[in-house]
């Protein structure tokens, strides 16, 4: 489905201002839509079918390149205008450099030209501190603005937070996930208190979606649902490189999600044995529940370090015990699930569970705009894990 663009046109503006960028975008759009091989058979209005604005923020040129490629792969899927901002706040002179690109492709059914407009902006010096003023004139009005923030969570005073409707981060890139997920939680609170209703999302949270779905699915039936009330032990296995820790953003968020949904209150977090295993403990009414995060050496396996590999939930005891497991298969493309109710039945199955590529993840995030309250509530639990 991701075809290569039919036509791409680019212009480089070594040193410019916002108006210059806007003028170039319009000029390139005009040029590309009237080039000679685009013969309008019928007078079809060139509808710019844009559905959103996307702003990517990074301080790293490589990341900007990757971001631009990811967006490029979405050409035709999400007609949009995007600004990829490389911030160089430490540069001595304020300056704005831009490359403007328009990629168009013919809609599969012919006739219509779908275009994606992109400006790669390098903002130097003081310009990097006032990105709101750069972005606003370049955004298509009335369409939602997604801010994809590459790196640790943005500071509370970042101007771009004032223009966006949805903030997308990737907590897998947080060097200290426990602390920085807490920071992200505080940012949600600050923005809410300033009446900024920004929706938050996280690629790493999105990577957990199939895990959450498969875990939730165990308890959809009336026979299994009661086991949630006696859930007492969870074990999350996480892929690590030799010497790494298993306490990455993925297991933290997964455990926090379970706790948030089941009303467990965090008690604390404890490093076990050689400090590579961790025990998260929770109060749930009279009972206690624990989540053990354990490493699994990543030797000759596919997939990234820090990724959840298997989850086991144990509820009840003796002839009322229920064991529910989800595990990624070694081929990396499937998951097997097993539900075993002592004294009753056991069912296993295999379902597809591909790793989502960055393109898939971005596409997924861009498809929604509403707040993910469950994510925000899970973040709040993570924030309370740290004493």
């Amino acid at each position, binding site marked *: 489905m991701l075809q290569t663009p039919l036509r791409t046109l680019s212009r480089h503006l070594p040193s410019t201002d916002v108006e210059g960028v806007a003028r170039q975008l319009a000029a390139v759009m005009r040029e590309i839509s009237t080039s000679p091989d685009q013969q309008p058979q019928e007078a079809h209005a060139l509808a710019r079918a844009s559905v959103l604005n996307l702003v990517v923020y990074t301080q790293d040129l490589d990341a900007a390149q990757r971001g631009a490629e990811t967006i490029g792969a979405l050409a035709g899927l999400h007609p949009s205008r995007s600004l990829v901002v490389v911030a160089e706040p430490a540069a001595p002179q304020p300056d704005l450099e831009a490359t403007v690109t328009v990629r168009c492709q013919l809609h599969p059914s012919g006739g219509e030209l779908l275009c994606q407009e992109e400006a790669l902006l390098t903002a130097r010096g003081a310009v990097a501190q006032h990105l709101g003023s750069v972005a606003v004139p370049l955004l298509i009005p009335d369409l939602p603005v997604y801010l994809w923030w590459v790196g640790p969570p943005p500071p509370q005073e970042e101007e771009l937070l004032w223009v966006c409707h949805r903030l997308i981060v990737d907590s897998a890139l947080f060097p200290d996930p426990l602390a920085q997920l807490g920071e992200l939680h505080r940012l949600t609170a600050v923005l809410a208190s300033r009446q900024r209703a920004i929706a938050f999302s996280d690629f790493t949270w999105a990577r957990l979606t199939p895990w959450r779905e498969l875990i939730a699915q165990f308890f959809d039936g009336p026979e299994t649902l009661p086991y949630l009330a006696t859930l007492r032990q969870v074990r999350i296995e996480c892929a690590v490189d030799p010497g790494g820790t298993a306490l990455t953003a993925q297991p933290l968020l997964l455990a926090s999600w379970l706790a948030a949904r089941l009303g467990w209150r965090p008690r604390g977090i404890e490093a076990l044995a050689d400090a590579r295993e961790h025990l998260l403990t929770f109060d749930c009414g009279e009972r206690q529940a624990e989540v053990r995060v354990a490493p699994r050496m990543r030797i000759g396996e596919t997939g990234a370090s820090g990724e959840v590999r298997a989850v086991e939930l144990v509820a009840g005891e003796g002839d009322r015990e229920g064991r529910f497991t989800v595990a990624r298969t070694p081929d990396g493309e499937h998951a097997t699930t097993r539900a075993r109710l002592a004294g009753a039945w056991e069912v296993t199955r295999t*379902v597809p569970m591909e790793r989502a590529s960055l393109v898939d993840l971005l596409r997924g995030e861009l498809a929604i705009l509403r707040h993910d309250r469950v994510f925000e509530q899970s973040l709040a639990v993570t924030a309370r894990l740290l004493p």
Partner: protein
Amino acid sequence: MTQARTTPSVEEQAINPLREGLRLERTAPPCAMVIFGGGGDLAKRKLMPALYQLALNRLLPAEFTVLGFARSPLSDEEFRRTMRAAVGEFSRTQPLREPVWDSFSQGLFYLSGNLDDPQAYQRIAARLDELDRTRGTCGNRLFYLATPPSAFPVIVQRLGEAGLTQGPQPQSWVRIVIEKPFGRDLKTAIELNHTVRSVFQERQVYRIDHYLGKETVQNLLAFRFSNGLWEPVWNRQYIDHVQITVAESVGIENRASYYEEAGALRDMVQSHMFQLLALVAMEPPVSFEADTVRDEKVKVLRAIRPIPEDRFHDFTVRGQYGAGWIGGREAPAYRDEPGVARDSPRETYAALKLFIDNWRWADTPFYLRHGKRLPKRVTEVAIQFKRAPHLLFAESGGEQLEPNLLLVRIQPDEGISLRFAAKVPGPTMHLRSVHMDFLYGSAFLVDAPDAYERLLLDCMLGDATLFTRNDEAEQAWAYVTRLLEGWERATPDFPNYEAGAWGPEEADRFLERDGRRWRVP
């Protein structure tokens, strides 16, 4: 739109707290699906591929179980092998994923027997109880009638006699899906409803019309009722007329025995086209729930003005194709298709003019047409607006301008297109009609699910919004039956259109008399 539809049915009770906020809000609860006619064409082409696709998309629970029932003596293993071959051939995602199929097929079972044998239903009941114990299907049952329609009444009766209409546990549900055709005229439809209702409650009954499962048909509702722009002009003041076209380029494809009995009116108009008509013309429902939506739809069907006995000619055209050419291929006449009578009076084309007698639509004609062997396959609803009341630009091309047209294309290339006038750039006031197209595929490029996937899932979730209610079926039949009876009183002069033409010439004159023209889609 899907978010608005998650209202849990009365039958759903305890809520799984882990479900909240998941993007897959709609996955099915554990249940066993009994397919009567489990080895038939529908099961192979549509049901099993749809179920496999639901499994691939993780929309089915691990406990999900199928029990196929038909005459042929097959073991569970043989049934699985047959179904594997069918899914391998008909699934919309290829190739088949072995590990997923292997695990999914562990939940497929088969029982052989005769549909009218009461003993067989005892065996079904015993097998279902066993599956509850071994696979956790929780007493939830979905009976799917995929047999020849003549068997529907007996299956329903036998299910009742065997006590299979209630689940074994207080919280378990039992539902029945009835394939189309639902009756062959008003009388048989009423009889079938009567039989069904003597055994099941209406809320357990899901009459399938797969058109309603199509994504774009549902989009019609979203388009009408979630945009403030259209509703104010969606009435007789602004709309000149509406054309609904369901054109097929294929002929009857080895289904002669069925088609000789049915014909265009029964096959397409009574079911699918009246459903489209109802969605286009209905009043906004108070909520998006099964009964509120269907209440409004049935009001439309009830408001269709009956055709006076002696004026069938003014309101209907029927046709049958003769030999001709389609897409560079020669096509035989209907009467030369294998299995068709040489003097068959069966219509393969039908056009109707309808009026909906209510405040919104009084005197606004709705033209419906459907035919086989038309030049191309297309389903669309065209809303033709009235001309602007006063033409300012008459000398500058204004008088040839077409009035505004809103086109809702259902297939292929689902989308919406609006025709309006615009100024040709330059110093003079030259006008031209332009189209503004919105293609669903370009704004949201996700694979649309097949209609059966959507409908099976809805049924497992207890959402009957996209299924036909008893009164809808009867209203539609009431109208169509009168027409059929009128037609039967005269012998038609068939064939009257060539394969590859847009229907009989009479159909063109039919609109010309009203000063209108059929669109060429």
